[in-house]
């Protein structure tokens, strides 16, 4: 049994142990759940130093499962999945510890479900077999359904069923696409009168990656559409997002955290892992509508956030906006945008997770999430106010915090995208930056600034040590990614280049721009600098490193550079 299986099933084992505990031993149950999550996180941390960032899929494990169908039990991760797994185990701890005081009944069942949810999510990221992926994808739904449906707010049943059915509808379409891929590969059934390949039947994702470009465009289109509905609902992209505010508002805090931090990433992960590399033609064909929907999502989500009265709903709509950025960067189809997109998945998990956590803190104290019920809280709860401010700044993409790196790379990727061919997409999307500041600062002002005039708020205690610890853990991540994101970006370099090459095989074949020393010598300004600064020499060597494109690179004179 390999490391990935261990990571995936540790939470399930923990859940099994809790199953045999007395339901009244809540303290033991909590400790057990927390211990499980912490152990899982530590084990998943082991992956990082042992991960070889020069390789693609690693820690592979393959077992026979249903040979007659070609279904294998195959696990393996690349850098993208690695980051998402670390995010999942990390946020798992946050979610469990945040539930100590929030969940007051049926704790045993609650923690069991939360742990099972972890297993489902981790399995989804690890699976390299489509059948297996689909099983985990569906397994993940059930615990979340119960978490919303049992421990949720007043309209919990409506929200839970909506969440479940909406996602299910999408995944059925996704299943059809998976089957279409399967039958194309083995030639069992002809879709659209297109003859399949006649390979041995398999659900192997990597096999599909390899045959993807052989699929005729018109078939790719339909397969892509199936994937699109499956993933776009999960992301959620405008206009498939309406389940999200309901689910978030009704879910308990931990449910919201997991939902925002990890579950939404299933959709974007699906696009990155399956839709883009397997269906390059359809990706390019459907690029414009998807990008337009993403940009609508960015602006629409931000504007709707602006006028929300419920804090949780505000944060939920802001997710629509943030995930729009993720989609935009992804479909820029260049390394910059895609890397930013992957990093932004992590950033959104941390920042929005933190915001939901903070809303949870205040909800436990005051049992209301209505913005109008607050005002002037900074006076009564200065620590809470400071923590909230940092989370809000991270969410609105302030430099030196994580959100900026992701948004910057995404917008730079979008501005530089040859697939878009125009900077106007980036320009429209960048309005999201302004609106992001507007809705978060307005929220902050209404909740924390101004006079403390509601008597009910005048004796609210500030954050306790447990809450402070949770937030500090998240803030450390925000600052780390914001100041030194290289470790996170390095591991996704290889997979991102792989995806770019799948979609646009010629991307790296273009000539490389280097900065020859002649440029520096031509102008008196930097000549003195050039001697002191290590610039021109490092640039010329660093640019082509480790990429197949190095063959095409050469040194250009300034006039060549300028020729464009």
């Amino acid at each position, binding site marked *: 049994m390999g490391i990935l299986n261990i990571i995936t099933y540790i939470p399930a084992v923990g859940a099994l142990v809790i199953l045999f505990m007395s339901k009244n031993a809540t303290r033991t149950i909590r400790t057990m759940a927390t211990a499980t999550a912490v152990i899982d996180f530590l084990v998943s941390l082991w992956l990082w130093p042992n991960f070889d960032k020069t390789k693609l899929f690693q820690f592979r494990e393959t077992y026979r499962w249903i040979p007659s*169908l070609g279904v294998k039990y195959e696990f393996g991760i690349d850098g993208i999945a690695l980051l998402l797994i670390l995010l999942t185990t990390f946020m798992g701890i946050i979610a469990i510890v945040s539930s100590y005081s929030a969940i007051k009944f049926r704790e045993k069942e609650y923690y069991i479900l939360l742990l099972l949810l972890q297993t489902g999510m981790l399995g989804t990221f690890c699976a390299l077999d489509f059948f297996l992926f689909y099983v985990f994808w569906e397994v993940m739904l059930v615990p979340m359904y119960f978490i919303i449906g049992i421990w949720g707010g007043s309209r919990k049943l409506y929200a839970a069923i909506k969440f479940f059915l909406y996602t299910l509808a999408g995944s059925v379409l996704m299943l059809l696409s998976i089957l279409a891929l399967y039958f194309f590969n083995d030639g069992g059934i002809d879709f659209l009168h297109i003859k399949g390949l006649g390979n041995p039947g398999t659900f192997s994702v990597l096999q599909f990656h390899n045959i993807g470009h052989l699929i005729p465009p018109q078939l790719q289109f339909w397969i892509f559409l199936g994937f699109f509905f499956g993933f776009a609902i999960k992301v959620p992209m405008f206009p498939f997002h309406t389940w999200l505010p309901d689910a978030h508002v009704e879910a308990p805090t931990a449910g919201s955290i997991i939902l925002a931090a990890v579950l939404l990433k299933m959709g974007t992960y699906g696009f990155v892992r399956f839709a883009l590399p397997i269906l390059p033609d359809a990706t390019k064909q459907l690029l414009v509508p998807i990008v337009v929907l993403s940009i609508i999502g960015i602006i629409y989500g931000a504007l*709707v956030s602006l006028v929300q009265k419920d804090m949780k709903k505000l944060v939920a709509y802001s997710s629509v906006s943030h995930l729009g950025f993720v989609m935009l960067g992804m479909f820029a189809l260049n390394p910059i945008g895609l890397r930013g997109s992957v990093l932004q998945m992590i950033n959104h998990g941390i920042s929005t997770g933190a915001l939901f956590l903070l809303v949870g803190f205040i909800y436990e104290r005051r049992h209301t999430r209505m913005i109008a019920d607050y005002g002037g809280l900074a*006076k009564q709860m200065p620590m809470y106010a400071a923590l909230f401010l940092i989370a809000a700044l991270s969410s609105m993409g302030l430099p030196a915090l994580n959100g900026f790196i992701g948004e910057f790379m995404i917008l*730079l990727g979008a501005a530089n995208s040859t697939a878009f061919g125009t900077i106007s997409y980036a320009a429209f999307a960048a309005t999201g930056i302004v609106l992001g500041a507007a809705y978060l600062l307005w929220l902050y002002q209404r909740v924390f*600034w101004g*006079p403390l005039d509601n008597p009910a708020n005048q004796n609210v205690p500030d954050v306790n040590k447990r809450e402070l610890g949770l937030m500090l853990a998240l803030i450390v991540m925000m600052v780390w990614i914001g100041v030194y994101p290289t470790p996170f970006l390095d591991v996704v370099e290889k997979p991102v280049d792989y995806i770019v090459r799948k979609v646009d095989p010629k991307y790296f074949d273009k000539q490389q721009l280097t900065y020859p020393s002649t440029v520096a010598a031509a102008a008196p300004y930097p000549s003195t600098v050039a001697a002191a600064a290590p610039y021109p020499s490092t640039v010329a060597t660093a640019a082509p490193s480790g990429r197949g494109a190095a063959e095409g690179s050469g040194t250009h004179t300034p006039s060549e550079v300028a020729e464009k």
Partner: protein
Amino acid sequence: MSSALLLVVLLPAIGALINGTRAFLAPHTPKNKTTTNFFALATTALSALIATWIVIQSAGSPWQHVYFQWIPTGLGHAGALLANFTVDFALRIDHLSSTMLMIVTWVGFLIHVYATGYMSHEKGYTRFFTYLNLFMFMMLLLVLGANYIVMFVGWEGVGLCSYLLIGFYYDKNFAADAGKKAFITNRIGDFGFILGIFLIFNTFGSADYTRVFALASAGGHAQYGAIATAICLLLFVGACGKSAQVPLYVWLPDAMAGPTPVSALIHAATMVTAGVYMVVRSNVLFRLAPDAMLVVAIIGAVTAIFAASIGLAQNDIKKVLAYSTVSQLGYMFLGAGVGAFTAAIFHVMTHAFFKACLFLGAGSVIHGCGGEQDMRKMGGLRKYMPRTHWTMLVATIAIAGIPPLAGFFSKDEILANAFPHHKFIWLLGVVTAGMTAFYMFRLYFMTFHGTYRGAQVEGIETSEPEHGGHHLIPDQRHLDQGDEHIDKAHGHHVHSHEPHESPFSMTGVLAVLAVLAVLGGLIGLPAALGGAHPTWFQQWLAPVLLPIGGEHFEFHEAALSTEYILMLVSVAVAVLGIFLAWRFYKRDPLWSTLKRLAATFAPIHRALESKYYVDELYNATVIRGTVLLALGLWWFDTWVVDGIVNGVRHLTVFFLGHGSNLFDKYVVDGAVNGVATTARGGSMMFRRVQSGLVQNYALIMGGGIVLIAVVYLFMKP
């Protein structure tokens, strides 16, 4: 030396971290002020000293250092070629950044010292210094960054500190509003700035100054003319936000809600000049784009005269200075726009001296009058606070442009450069100079001359047509403290005491700044008055102005006679302004002439007093429009987007559930089994939808997969 430079930047951050932790962990307990002072001032002082050492050591030879690779973004396209778009954390020392470095560290340090006196009675003392140190850190990043991204980090960072400090008295709604307004308006500018950065990346494959400017200067107009125009206009949008130019200037007057040292440091001397710094830093690009330069010059000139005219009729001492700052910033852009980049930075420097002095003097006045900011309730203060009076008088003369004080030289250099290029812009500049002299001496006479009017509150109408509703910032210094912290020395009751002079920590700083305001201009002494040509300051900054396409940037040499005439005109206009102020406010202590004039030109006067109703206009259009749009979208989301989802649900349940059930019962009852079974399957499934039993879905799901698998297996052979 590179680690020393890093230390310069990091020291204030360390101070902020220590004081911030102290303020965060024990928010309700009063902290030891000496400890706070130590961490705040020692770090700033050390930072300034090391910075000075570095500037002296570097001796005018530029260098930069890459500390680490910050954002490894990967391969992108610059033109048709692939370029490695990395973003380094790199700092740079050259003539421009050392100039700004000296201004920021030393003026920053002086204002820190001043604030220890001014803020001494505040409850949020440690919090205040945390923000102030954080600001120093961000501002240093802004001016020292070796590429546009590091500059952008500082740029947004100072915006954040500005937000926090404007909102320092956060429990007052006007302060909270002003903070938010400042941040969001700045973000609108940043939107342009960041798009400009993206275009720079797309064009040059880098955001590093040396590479961008080297390529741009080698390429010249032919290669980069068009794209440079777009880049420069976008960058200038950013500059408009940060440096409060039309149409994004509205946040700066409101920003006066912050404590006065903040207004001096951030909203006069340093942060608001960041836009000018950015334009001058990008001078190579701007000179490739004459159209963009013209826009800069026009916006600058319009802002200068527009804000100055509003400043004529304000009665809040800080508001006058705020509009004056907007106007002077316009001057700087006017200079940059006509190609007088050196003069723009020169004016940044002299302005930092005299405007910091004026703001701190105003702070001293407010402090001495127990929190009063309305000049109509001041008067005669020269008797009570002589040191403040003298220093402020010096700074007032300096800003009015009377030789040989600092303001004259920088202003004259800008006007002298504007004259040969655009006569009309020059004219706007001259008129603005006259207005500046008038409103500054108006402030001076109203505050320090005549008799003290603080006691006779009833005699003067207290409410002016102020639509923001909070221009009289009541007793601002005491807003943050609880009742137990009432300032005993000055008394909480504003008018019960006579005004008094401020402590030495404040007046001492005023004296230093006044000296600078007198002497600071001499480094830009023009040849016509016995200096060098180009002036010493021009020679110092010349290496930053790259040749373009082989053509060197020339400092134009006008005929001496023209130069003398121009000087004479600007001095004459300034003297006229001073005379009018003297005539209306000093010689006529009851201001009767003025009141008559105001009555005659009532609409104009009201428009000026109400700042041309620009805030009202923005509220009615942009803000209200956005909110209405957002409300509309929310309605759309609830009733249309989600309505469709719910509608689909109801229809499905109805037709497939009940419908097929009925169909099954009455139409095909007992007919073909296959069809009926399917329909019943559907109806069963959707009836369960209503019951919400998830197990059933899982079962159906699994069943479906098995079914497909079985069908497939049978079909295969």
